[in-house]
C-alpha cells in the first residue's frame, strides 16, 4: 500500500509537472511554424497563476535543495561523477567487477 506521504509526493509531482509543462509548451511554441495552442482543460487555475510563476522565480540551486528535502530525488544511487575539465576515471574497484563481469550479449532477447 502506498503511504499517505508517497501519495502526496506523487500527486505533487504529477500536478506540478503538468502545469509547468503546459506553460512552457505555450511559450516555446508560440512563434514556431506548424504548432498550435495546447488543449487546456478547465481547472488548475491556482497552479497556473500562482505555482508556476512562484516556481520560476526560485533559483535552480534552491529548487534542487527543496526537491531533495521533499524526497523527490532518488535515494540509493550515487550522484554522477561530473567534474568538468577532469578526465573520467574508472571506480577503484572496477578490476574486481570486471573479474565478475557479465558474458557478452547474445542476440536472444526481446527489445
Amino acid at each position, binding site marked *: 500500500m502506498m503511504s499517505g506521504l508517497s501519495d502526496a509526493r506523487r500527486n505533487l509531482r504529477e500536478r506540478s509537472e503538468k502545469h509547468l509543462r503546459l506553460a512552457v509548451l505555450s511559450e516555446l511554441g508560440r512563434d514556431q511554424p506548424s504548432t498550435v495552442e495546447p488543449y487546456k482543460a478547465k481547472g488548475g487555475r491556482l497552479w497556473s497563476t500562482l505555482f508556476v510563476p512562484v516556481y520560476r522565480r526560485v533559483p535552480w540551486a534552491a529548487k534542487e535543495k527543496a526537491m531533495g528535502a521533499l524526497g523527490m530525488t532518488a535515494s540509493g544511487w550515487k*550522484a554522477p561523477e561530473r567534474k568538468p575539465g577532469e578526465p573520467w576515471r574508472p571506480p577503484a574497484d572496477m578490476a574486481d567487477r570486471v573479474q565478475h563481469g557479465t558474458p557478452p550479449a547474445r542476440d536472444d532477447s526481446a527489445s
Partner: protein
Amino acid sequence: MERVVVIGGGGAGTAAATITKRLNPDLKVSVFTEFSDIAYSPCGIPFVHGREIPSFDDLFLSTVERYREDGLDMRMETVVTDIDLDRRTITTKNQPEGFDQLILCTGFFWEQPDVPGVNLDGIHYVKDIRKSMEFDQQLDAMKRIVVVGAGPVGVEMAGGLAHRGLQVDLVDEGPWVLHEILDPDVAKPVHDSLEARGVTLHLGTKVEAFEGGKDGHVNAVVTSDGTLECDAVVTGLHKVPNTALAEAAGLKLGTTGAVKVDDHMRTSAPGVWAAGDVVEIPHGLNMIPIVGLTGAHAYAQGRVAAVNITGGDLAYDPVWVPWGMVAGDYTIGGFSMGENLAKSIGIPYVLAKGVGITKARYYPGAQKTFVKLLAEPDTLRLIGGVIHGGEGVKERCDFLAFAAKRGATLYDLAYMENIYSPPIGALFEPIQIAAQNALAEQRQNKLAVA
C-alpha cells in the same frame, strides 16, 4: 537447488533470466510470463503494420524451446497472482511456488483514455504480438484509422499505417507531435513528413468519447474539434508501470508510481529485485526518477540484476536517455533533455546551435543535420540536446549522452576529433560546429542564458 524466479518475459526478464543462468548454471531459474511468446521485438510492430518489415516472423529472435535447451524453466501463459514475501512464495494457478530470489520484470501497460466508450471493440494497444497479428489481418479490410496520442508509438503507428495506404487521423492534446520530448523548432519538418505520408494531424485536440455501432465495434472518435469516423482506433498514450503485484506485496513505490530500486536493482525487500519498465531510474543530471525508458535500458537493467544476484557487484548508472526515431520519413533524436523539459523544470542553460552535413558536400545523398546542444551557463558542461535530419542521428545522440555522463563541455566538443570520409562524414562534424558557434558567441558576449 537455489531457485531464482523471474516474473515477466520482456527485455528485462529475459536478460535477467538468461544471464543469471549463464553466470551460475547451478541455479534453477524459472521465468513466468502471461504470454505465449518470448524474445520478440515489440518495437518492430509498427513497421510490420506499415509493410516496411514483411512479416511478424521477422520480429522473433528466439524460441521458448531454445530457452529450455539453455536450462531455463519456462512457464508460458502463466499469470502470477500473488507474492508472499514472508513465505518466499509466488502464487500461480492457485498453487504456491517457492523462491529464494525474485526478479520483478512486470513491464508496463498502456494508459487508457479516460473517456466513454473506451471498452469498445476495435480499440487497439500496441504491445502483444499475437493481438497485433490479428489486428494486422483486420487492417486489410479497413480504410480509416484514428491514432490517439502523438507520442513515439502513436507517431510510428500513424506513419506506418499511412505508408500502408490507410487514411490516418492523429489526435493529440499537445501543440505539436512528440511534444513531451521534442522541441517546437523541429515540429515543422516532422509534421511535413507525416503529412506527406498522408497523416492528418489534429493537434491541441482532446478526445472526448469513442462511439460504436450495435455490434459493439468503435466507428467514430468524438473530439473537441469534431467527430472522426473510423474503422479502428490505435492508442499510444503513456506507458504505466505494471506495479500491481509489487504494490500488493508491499514493495516501496517512488514518485512516478514505479517500483523504487537502488543502483543494484534491489527493491525495498531483501532478495527481491526489479528491472525494466516497472522501475523508476534517476536522471543523471538531477537525480529525479523517471520512467518510460527503452528496451535497451530494460535489457541492461536485467543484466545488472543478474550479475548482483549471482554474487557480483555491478551498479547501474543514472541515465542520460539517448533517444531517436523516424517520424514519417524524418529522423529525430536527442538525449537527456531539450529546451522544452529544461525550461519546464527550470534548469538554466545556454544554447549551442549548428547545421552540418552527413557526408562530404559533393557526395551524392549528403543531407543537412541540425544540432542543438544545451549546456550549463557557468561551466558550459553538456546537459542535453536535440539532433534531427539525415543519417547518424542515433550515433550522435548515443555519443552525446555518454559525453554528458562523463562531464564533457562545449570546449571539449568544439575541439573533438572527427572522421572525414566523403561517403560517411564531412570535414566538419555537426556537433563540433554547434559547439564552435557557442564559443564564438561567448567571445562576443552574445551567449545568452535561457
